[in-house]
């Protein structure tokens, strides 16, 4: 999926997957903190305005 995103011109860092057990709350929180940090560094998605203001056909 990351490779397909990258080929389509979307930074693959925008997708992150990791297996975390439901018993590992702190790990999940830490992972999400890091992910959000990375996303902030990347800035807004190039797709942000692509589908805006489209009228129904």
């Amino acid at each position, binding site marked *: 999926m990351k490779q*397909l995103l990258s080929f*389509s*011109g979307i930074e693959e860092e925008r997708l992150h997957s990791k297996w975390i057990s439901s018993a590992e709350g702190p790990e999940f929180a830490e992972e999400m903190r890091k992910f959000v940090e990375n996303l902030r560094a990347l800035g807004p998605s190039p797709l942000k305005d692509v589908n805006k203001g489209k009228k129904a056909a």
Partner: protein
Amino acid sequence: MSDKVKDKVKELLSSGKIKGFLGLCSRDGNIAPHLFVTEDELDNLVVGDKSAPGDSRYPLNRQLINLVRAYPDDTFGILVRGCDERGLAALASWNQINPNKIEMVGIACPQELAIACECLKPYPESFVDGEKCEGVTAETVARIDSLKVKERFDLWLNEFSKCIKCYGCRNICPMCFCNECSLENDELIRKGEIPPEIPTFHLTRAVHMAGRCIDCGLCSEACPADIPLRTLYKKVADIIYKQYNFRAGYDAGQKSPLNFLGGLPE
């Protein structure tokens, strides 16, 4: 190129080995799919080279699925190029057809067509006409790979913006056999928008082509907006090959690594 094919089909029909032969027929200057059931019809049989090799191909495999479902006890013959043979192997691996009830009559594509298709294997395992030519790797994929991420984004944004959501790519695809299609699911892709949501529509289809696309290129031929869909699906096939060492249809009997319902591959 059709004489040897005709001879082979004549033999299959006269021996009673097949009930009918699904091929292409030329009539009034047009080439269309046709089910040949008698030998005297064979005069009109063609292999789909109207003004250039392979310029009049049809998704015969799609019609074959309907045919074998309607007549499950009969054996049918079918005209195949390398891609069609891969399609049949893949369809069998997804339990859509019974390969024992299908008799393939193969033709090898000329180099010219193999280059245009960037086809890795432009010939079936056995063929009655044509000559085996070299497989061709996908320059189109390599070219996009070499671009910067922003350039790739702009390229696909430009391509996907042309989409008129005609579903032609899906409708012609010989590997699209689902009864319900995600592309028509309002929860996934909103209805009534043209172009369909970018890049969701095309990437959804691309993901579904993973481990399934046999690279026949009919999608690109059908697309009225000339979106290079084949290039996108070639990339997806390359990813699956890199990750799982699997290419759909190249190894008869081998299931896609994504085909969990049929059990994991050995």
